[in-house]
């Protein structure tokens, strides 16, 4: 009941020193008459507090933190999965691109080879034709030339026999003339 006495009025400070001294201390924290009440109320309040913390507050906060951690972990793994999918898609695209490029190369090469072969064949054909014509022309030229040459002999014989007849008044014999022509033309 000393506590009650303390609280009554401020002016009674001197008066309360006496009852306080009876308990061996005027210093409130060492006043053992208040201990029972403080211990009881501490036990009640801290007990209730502990119960609330253990059963409500701590599970709730740890639940929130765990949810967040799970969510973040889930989001990260989802992001990784999507990244892997993206990587796979990119790889597939690149492979398809490479295949398409190879194919295109193949087609271009084939076409070029075919065109070249066609071209070559046509050129050969034309060349062969040209060669044929060239040979024909050469043969014709040679024929014409021999023909002309043979005629030259006759013309030269006739001219020579006419010249000889003019000079000596007598036409040479055929054999003499041929002999003379042969020796002159060689």
């Amino acid at each position, binding site marked *: 009941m000393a506590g*009650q006495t303390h609280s009554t009025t*401020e002016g009674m400070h001197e008066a309360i020193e006496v009852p306080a001294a009876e308990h061996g201390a005027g*210093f409130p924290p060492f006043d053992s008459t208040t201990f029972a009440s*403080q211990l009881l*109320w501490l036990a009640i309040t801290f007990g209730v507090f502990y119960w609330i913390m*253990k059963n*409500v507050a*701590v599970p709730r906060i740890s639940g929130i933190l765990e*949810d967040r951690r799970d969510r973040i972990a889930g989001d990260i793994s989802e992001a990784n999965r999507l990244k892997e999918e993206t990587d796979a898609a990119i790889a597939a695209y690149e492979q398809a691109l490479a295949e398409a490029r190879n194919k295109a190369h193949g087609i271009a090469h084939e076409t070029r080879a075919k065109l070249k072969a066609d071209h070559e064949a046509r050129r050969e054909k034309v060349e062969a034709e040209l060669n044929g014509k060239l040979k024909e022309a050469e043969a014709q030229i040679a024929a014409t030339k021999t023909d002309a040459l043979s005629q030259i002999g006759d013309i030269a014989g006739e001219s020579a026999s006419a010249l000889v007849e003019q000079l000596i008044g007598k036409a040479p014999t055929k054999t003499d003339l041929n002999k003379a022509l042969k020796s002159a033309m060689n």
Partner: protein
Amino acid sequence: MANDPIHQFHIQTLFPIEVGGMDFSFTNSSLFMVLTVAATSAFLIFSTSGRGLVPTRLQSISEMAYEFVAGTLRSAAGTEGMRFFPLVFSLFMFVLVANLFGMFPYFFTVTSHIIVTFALAMLVILTVIIYGFMRNGMKFLKLFVPSGVPAALIPLVTLIEVISFLSRPISLSVRLFANMLAGHITLKVFSGFIVSLSAMGAVGIFGSILPLGMTVALTALEFLVAFLQAYVFTVLTCMYLNDAIHPSH
């Protein structure tokens, strides 16, 4: 009376309750215990009622308090120590809020009474002893016999270990109690100087600037002490619990 620095620690009965000759009255101390518990519980529950994936400001305060205590406990006593998390969290929050409530003018500081801090310290020590024996049996006594000590020194070292173990509840409770008590007395003394000096006329009013500045600085310091002592109490609790879990150190 206004200047009496001890007056703030007086226990005042609000509702007298007496059982079997024992005084169990509801006092101002009881009132502030109830307020501490009610305010802390209400804050922790309402701030987290949204269960937001993205926390609100208040929710992040609760989360910070949780993770702060969890980090302290885990680093001192390992993951096994987490079984004591509700107790350690309750102790930290109770002591912290009781200390901070004491910073309001005219508020009673629950933790400025040795019996309260001693009771909390005994709660910790009894938890350590009971759990220590439950978990480790007689091996718990290895706590008092450090390994790697020469045989000749074992009796001496054991004696020292026992004394240090027994002094734990005392040091744990006196540290918190004395810090809160001394801080509040100092604050009250310096603010009392302001009142007495300013009553002495113009020179006194000028002179009272010094204790005023001191009071402001001490108030800031006391807020730091209020937090720090709650933290120290918690850290030591965690270390003692670690002894119960891993007695051979």
